[in-house]
């Protein structure tokens, strides 16, 4: 049974009524009634999914059935070769990385990976990377740079893991180093937020020439619940915090933080993996082809310039 979010309940109910009516239709002709309800269903879906609140977007971004990095990777790049380890400490299962062929392009793909059931959630540490995940990503980004291959990253994390060992092994340093290294990568880097983009944990593989965001995702400096607990001193204000943080793709496009919003099938990527892949593939290919003729210096300069312009302030010397 698919998971239904609270605000999706009216849709689920209507769908149920339609299928009940269809099962009765063997005795009586209800086709007019059914098609009327189906029309109503389409309108209801458009109304609900077309007017999602920021908190509802967060819910969809966290949908348990939402496609994960590997779901996109296997559809985009059949024959993907996953590579493991940071050559320093270990292999982090919350970040997957490897070589793939996207149509005729050899690319390096790095993605934060969540699970789908209890076992895989634990194996993937709920998509919360440890330092060795960021260091594996850095190692393989440098490898891509060495062999002049473009890099694609998928962001989907509730945050870098806040653990004792993560601190011992330098979680902050691992993220910081990636920001510095990614700024200087001499190859095109396209980053796509496919689910949750929580703070430095997401940014740690998220510095690139283009940042795309799927329609039902969020990106901010802190998760709404944590923001609520710090600023309102209670977990109760998550909806308000989600709105205040301006974390939706539409907000971030307006704030010039992202470059593009990638469409999803109606109701979210969880409803149709194939359709979601078609949309994301078109956007990735288009952005890579826009970047492929730029020299390494031009790429690096433009990338640094892009980040230099981010922020809002007044005054200053020039």
């Amino acid at each position: 049974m698919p998971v239904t979010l609270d605000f999706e309940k009216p849709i689920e109910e209507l769908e149920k009524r339609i299928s009940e009516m269809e099962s009765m239709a063997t005795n009586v002709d209800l086709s007019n009634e059914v098609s009327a309800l189906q029309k109503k269903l389409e309108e209801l879906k458009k109304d609900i999914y077309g007017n999602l609140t920021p908190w509802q977007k967060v819910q969809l971004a966290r949908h348990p059935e939402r496609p994960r990095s590997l779901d996109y990777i296997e559809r985009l790049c059949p024959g993907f070769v996953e590579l493991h380890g940071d050559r320093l400490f270990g292999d982090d299962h919350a970040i997957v990385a490897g070589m793939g062929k996207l149509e005729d392009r050899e690319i390096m793909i790095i993605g934060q990976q969540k699970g789908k059931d209890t076992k895989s959630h634990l194996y993937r540490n709920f998509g919360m990377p440890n330092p060795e995940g960021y260091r594996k990503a850095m190692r393989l980004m440098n490898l891509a740079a060495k062999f002049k291959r473009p890099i694609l990253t998928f962001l989907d994390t509730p945050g870098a893991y806040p653990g004792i060992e993560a601190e011992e092994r330098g979680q902050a340093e691992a993220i910081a180093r990636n920001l510095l290294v990614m700024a200087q990568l001499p190859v095109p880097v396209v980053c796509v937020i496919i689910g949750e983009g929580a703070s430095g944990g997401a940014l740690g593989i998220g510095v690139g020439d283009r940042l795309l965001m799927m329609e039902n995702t969020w990106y901010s400096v802190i998760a709404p619940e944590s923001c609520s607990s710090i600023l309102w001193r209670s977990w109760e204000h998550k909806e308000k915090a989600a709105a205040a943080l301006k974390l939706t793709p539409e907000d971030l496009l307006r704030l010039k933080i992202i470059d593009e919003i990638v469409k999803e099938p109606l109701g979210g990527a969880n409803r149709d993996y194939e359709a979601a892949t078609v949309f994301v593939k078109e956007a990735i290919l288009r952005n890579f082809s826009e970047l492929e003729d730029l020299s390494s210096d031009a790429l690096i300069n433009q990338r640094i310039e892009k980040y230099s312009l981010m922020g809002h302030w007044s005054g200053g010397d020039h």
Partner: protein
Amino acid sequence: MNWFQRTKESIADGTTKKELPNVWIKCDHCGEILYKKELEKNLNVCLKCSHHFRVNAKTYIQLILDENSFKPVNKDMLSEDPLEFTDTKKYSDRLRTTIEKTGLKDAIQTGLGLIDGRVTALAVMDFGFIGGSMGSVVGEKISRVTDLAIQNRVPLIIVSASGGARMMEGALSLMQLAKTSAKLSIMHREGLPFISVLTDPTTGGVTASFAMLGDINLAEPGALIGFAGPRVIKEATGKDLPPGFQRAEFLVDHGFVDLIVQRSELKKTISRLLSFMEANTNKNLDLSQIRV
């Protein structure tokens, strides 16, 4: 003796009301009652246990730079409220009252100055301004002072004191991590020296960007340094934190800080390190000739 009572620390406005309405101060660490004048003369380091009290940016500027050599830049840069952020109060009101209360414009001061005669770019954070949080102004001022270091081929010193990125500017604050690190990548490419000085506390997005990227990372004794806050880690893991966890000494033990420096030795140490790292710098600069 209620004047010894420490008022609850507020994360939102970042103020720590430790000061007594008196000439005496109690050391947080050893409990010693210290004469305020003596403590200040000792650079706000406890005379009994060497606990380093938090001090403001102005104090570090005076401590590190040659007398009266500081040339501030972008002094009048101010935060805006691009998200029109409101929690229990409006961010714009919070900014206004913090500016009034602290006399500061934001959580950082930047500029050029001399260290034993050597022109150096300097940025120092103020924890007293919304918890030293990094929003657009902190990111932009660091970015610009790094540009200044690169243009003039001089070293860069950043003294950090911060609870992390500023929530009230959302993803714009997060982007300051990328921006400052990107600028430091140019410093790095150009072979110019960057010394990061981590003071109590340096956590969150500041640690996960420029503060951990020094050619040399220095820390003050006992400074809290980490990515996630201790409370968050405890909640997430359900484990007790080991003694000394996320203190400067812990960071040295785990290989992320080069050296712990007593406040009284800070300038001398920085100056010594800069001599070693001067290869690609311009050593014949006259500070008075530099237009800022």
